[in-house]
């Protein structure tokens, strides 16, 4: 049998939706069936997505569903594939990771059903090739992720609701933009749309694209809309957060890529107004991205809650993705896509590790942990490398993407964006070290003496993702090859990739040779190791307290409070705290409360006294009569 006929995006989606249903009913009876089925379906979907590599398909998969005969299309292309493979592999690994993490948690069966559903709808978002199915999958994705957040129980109520409200607000804005496009052009299929774009009035494009972009900015938690992110990421069940932050937050960027470069297209985008050769629209997005990156970093520095810290870090890293996306040059778009990949890799590992640690310690407060590095070496190492990638240290793949983005920003002379991004990146050293110091370094509390690495199901995904991070640092040509074809699909000059194992951008402007940097680092490492190993005598292990306490006798470690972790950055928090007090959350809260108050007032209209209603009727009639006499 020729199996390739089944390697089509629509079958992937059907598999997953059917899988979600089957898993639900099978999982009601046996937890083993639940685990194996969800792994099976997601793994199969991942395999199918991987086999879609290099294919370009487009097919109708439903008959027309609106009065005017809109059909729904799905298809795949290089850009789609790039995102699809990230989403699919992260979903698969997260499901694997969740098996021990979510065991015995509330509504466990729903968790797997919803995760499969979410995976299906995320893939649906990237595979859909017309406005309507895009929107439908988008809404499905929002809903299923909302439900996943609420699975955590009462403490996630408010976060989940805020997430849902803001997302829906964004989705409705998007819907407005989409229908504008549809009504104006009479079609919803992407390629037909983009063919008609040239010659469209600029104002129309600004309005529709702006409305659509609001939806994506909400999902990427960009500046005015980031308020949902930290609570939702941190309150979500530990099994879901890696997927939430690693995969789902990329879809906002995907949507922007799709609408800006695939549908509207570069030339029309420039036609909407440009600023130093960069479209003004893109510049606005990039600006928002850089400010988001900066502000979220400041928030992250202050956090003692491990998940909230990582959540703010996610917000700030997605800011970088938006930055590269907006600038829109060959370098920056490559950087943006590459950073999306990198962020998916490292942030998933970080949230997975955080989940494992939270399960172990039973708290999210980092200052109550400490010294876990020697007890959980695998978790520590994977998280350490991921943090290196997050901080863009040049022996991980995280550096390549940030380098591309900086290079593009400096090349265009964006004196506002580039420094913000750079300082935000320095800030990321601060908060990521806070995580390391408070969780893994310092003193081990008494309660965690017998802590050890989590089970294989947790560590395997982490190791897998981390090894990819390291691998891509040496051979950035591999991901950049896929990125280059995605770029050429979007009509952007593809980035030059010399060969698979090597990438060097050696124009007159700047250079980064991953291979040389890696070689020198390894060489230097070798030298230092040799120096360390052979110089002097062998060192002996001494208890952490011995030096500090000069060998005095002591009984209770924990009571000494030697672990310097709480209020780690107090000195500078004091500096910018007055400014951070102007939190956007307050504005939203005030608006929400104000509206509730207003509606409390509005419903006073229904006074309950029938005579009032008579007044209304007579008044209404009188108004109509006056209008009838004067106006008509």
């Amino acid at each position: 049998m020729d199996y390739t006929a089944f390697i089509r995006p629509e079958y992937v989606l059907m598999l997953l939706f059917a899988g979600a249903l089957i898993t639900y009913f099978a999982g009601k009876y046996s937890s083993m069936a639940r685990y194996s089925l969800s792994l099976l379906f997601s793994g199969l979907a991942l395999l199918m997505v991987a086999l879609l590599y290099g294919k370009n398909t487009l097919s109708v998969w439903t008959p027309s569903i609106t009065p005017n005969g809109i059909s729904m299309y799905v298809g795949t292309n290089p850009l789609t594939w790039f995102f699809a493979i990230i989403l699919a592999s992260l979903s698969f690994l997260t499901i694997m990771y969740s098996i021990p993490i979510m065991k015995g948690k509330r509504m466990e069966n729903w968790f797997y059903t919803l995760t499969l559903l979410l995976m299906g709808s995320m893939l649906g978002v990237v595979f859909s090739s017309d406005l309507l199915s895009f929107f439908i999958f988008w809404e499905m994705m929002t809903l299923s992720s909302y439900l996943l957040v609420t699975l955590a129980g009462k403490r996630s109520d408010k976060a989940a609701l805020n997430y849902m409200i803001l997302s829906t607000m964004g989705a409705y804005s998007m819907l407005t933009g989409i229908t504008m496009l549809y009504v104006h052009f009479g079609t919803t299929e992407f390629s037909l749309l983009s063919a008609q774009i040239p010659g469209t009035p600029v104002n129309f494009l600004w309005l529709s694209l702006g409305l659509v972009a609001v939806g994506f900015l909400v999902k990427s938690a960009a500046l005015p809309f980031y308020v949902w992110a930290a609570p939702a990421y941190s309150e979500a069940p530990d099994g879901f957060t890696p997927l939430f932050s690693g995969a789902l937050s990329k879809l906002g960027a995907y949507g922007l890529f799709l609408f800006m470069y695939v549908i509207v297209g570069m030339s029309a985008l420039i036609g909407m107004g440009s600023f130093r050769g960069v479209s003004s629209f893109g510049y606005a997005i990039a600006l928002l991205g850089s400010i988001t990156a900066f502000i979220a970093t400041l928030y992250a520095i202050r956090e003692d809650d491990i998940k909230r810290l990582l959540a703010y870090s996610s917000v700030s890293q997605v800011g970088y993705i938006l930055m590269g996306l907006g600038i829109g040059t060959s370098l920056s778009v490559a950087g943006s896509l590459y950073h999306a990949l990198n962020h998916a890799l490292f942030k998933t590992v970080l949230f997975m590790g955080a989940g494992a640690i939270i399960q172990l310690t039973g708290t999210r407060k980092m200052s109550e942990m400490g010294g876990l590095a020697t007890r959980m070496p695998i978790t520590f190492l994977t998280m350490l490398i991921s943090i290196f990638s997050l901080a863009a240290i040049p022996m991980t793949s995280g550096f390549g993407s940030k380098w591309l983005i900086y290079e593009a920003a400096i090349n265009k002379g964006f004196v506002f964006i580039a420094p913000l991004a750079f300082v935000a990146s320095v800030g990321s050293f601060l908060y990521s070290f806070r995580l390391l110091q408070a969780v893994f370094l310092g003193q081990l509390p008494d309660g965690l003496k017998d802590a050890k690495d989590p089970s294989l199901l947790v560590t395997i995904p982490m190791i897998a993702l981390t090894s990819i991070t390291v691998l891509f640092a040496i051979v950035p040509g591999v991901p950049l090859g896929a990125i280059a074809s995605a770029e050429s699909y979007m009509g952007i000059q593809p980035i030059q990739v010399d060969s698979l194992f090597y990438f060097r951008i050696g124009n007159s402007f700047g250079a980064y040779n991953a291979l040389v940097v890696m070689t020198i680092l390894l060489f230097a490492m070798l030298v230092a190791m040799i120096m360390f190993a052979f110089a002097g005598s062998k060192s002996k292990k001494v208890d952490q307290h011995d030096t500090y306490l000069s060998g005095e006798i002591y009984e209770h470690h924990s009571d000494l409070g030697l672990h310097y972790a709480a209020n780690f950055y107090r000195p500078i928090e004091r500096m910018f705290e007055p400014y951070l007090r102007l939190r956007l959350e307050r504005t939203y809260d005030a608006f929400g409360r104000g509206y509730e108050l207003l509606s409390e007032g509005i419903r006073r209209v229904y006074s309950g006294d029938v005579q009032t209603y008579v007044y209304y009727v007579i008044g209404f009639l009188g108004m109509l009569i006056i209008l009838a006499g004067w106006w008509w």
Partner: protein
Amino acid sequence: MVNIDPTLMIGIPLFMGFLIPSVAIVWKNSPRYLAGFTILFNLIASTLLLIRSLNAPVISVLGGWQPPYGIVFVAGPLGSMLALLISSMTMLTWFYLPPHIKEGNETKFYMLFILLMAGATGMVLTGDLFNLFVFTEITSIASFSLLAYSRGKDEKEAVEATIKYMIIGSLSSAFFLIGIALLYGATGTLNMADLASKIPSANHNLVMMALAMIITGLGIEAEMFPLNGWTPDAYTGATHPVSVMFASVVVKAGFFALIRVVFLIFGAATEALQILMIFGLLTLFVGESSALRQTDLKRMLAYSSIGQMGLLLVAFSLNNQTALVGGLYAMLNHAIAKGLLFMAAGSFIFALGTRDISALNGMGKRMPVTSALFTIGAFSIMGLPFFGGFISKIVIIAGSMQAGTEGMLVAILILSASLIELVYFLRVVHRIWMREPEDDSRLKEAPFTQMFPMIVLAAFVFLMGIYPQAFFKVLIPAAQELLRGLGTMIGGA
């Protein structure tokens, strides 16, 4: 094919309405079955009528007097669709009835129930303005009485709601009648088609005055903003099946009457449409905002109904085919989904003994099936994909976009209102599924006879979401009928 005269759809229920009390003297349990048969007859008749009317409108002349002098029934695709909606909703409510009407006199209840259906069916099928008035009155009186039906602890509220509804309702009928009188004075005819052709040549001021009166009169039935003071009380005070009937039948018929008068008789008078647009938006916002802070489940649903009626007004006053189709779709969806919601809410309240929303904590565990059905209804009203509300929302938005810049503003307003709606429905659904109940005991689910109508409605909600083409087949001709106006349709007869 059997042809059933539309007249019979009014005549038989009316006749049965008088037969029921008499038979009940002899056979005590008869009213339920007699009523059931009558509704079944109407259901079959309206189905046949819908099939026929898709090809050509069915016109039935009463008593051999030819229009415009005699009284006619006109069943276009739109009218017969609504007749079908009315009879099927009545049928489903009939299934739902038993435990909720135990307290009072069942014979009277069934009689009034049948009359309500007859009146509403008459409202959508008649082709004569005064006849419309008469049927409106039949419907109103039946609903007044049904509303006052409650006994026991709900009686106080029911009575209060009734007197409010009666005063406002009678006021409305008085204004409606004045409007009819003025129109008659201006044109000398009451046949709708005839009116439509004569109005352009009639005294403009008089006609506009009449229009104002009629909008006020029918606006009360259609829950338009400043005129809908009776609505929340009536929905709250009524027994649960009666609330279902209000939401799905009475208000829809009243709304349809308003639309018919504005569109068919006045040929989509643009001035009137602007007014309807503004007040539709107001209704939408006032309704949704009032629902936001409710703690009473039924009252929340009632305000949500008001909001949805505002949405319908907006959709219709956009006056283009797409928006009309969307409006009709929303009308169907609202009738079905809100009926479902009121039924499920009724079951909740019946089991819990309170209307307080906070009592719903953890209902997903205590009454899983009813909770699931409630959720389906709520999702549809919220407009989530794969439910009917989603399609209607998208189509309405697309329709409003066709109306240029103002249309875009309208679209944004509609969407903001539905955001509010999402918030309060989500709060309830969230409570049902995600909160831990204070009292963990399992509650008794409704018996199958009551569950059956809810399941049917839920299935329809779902069907509307995933296979809308089936409904568009009827709705597109219906929308075209509205746009063409009545005059051309029956050849000015």
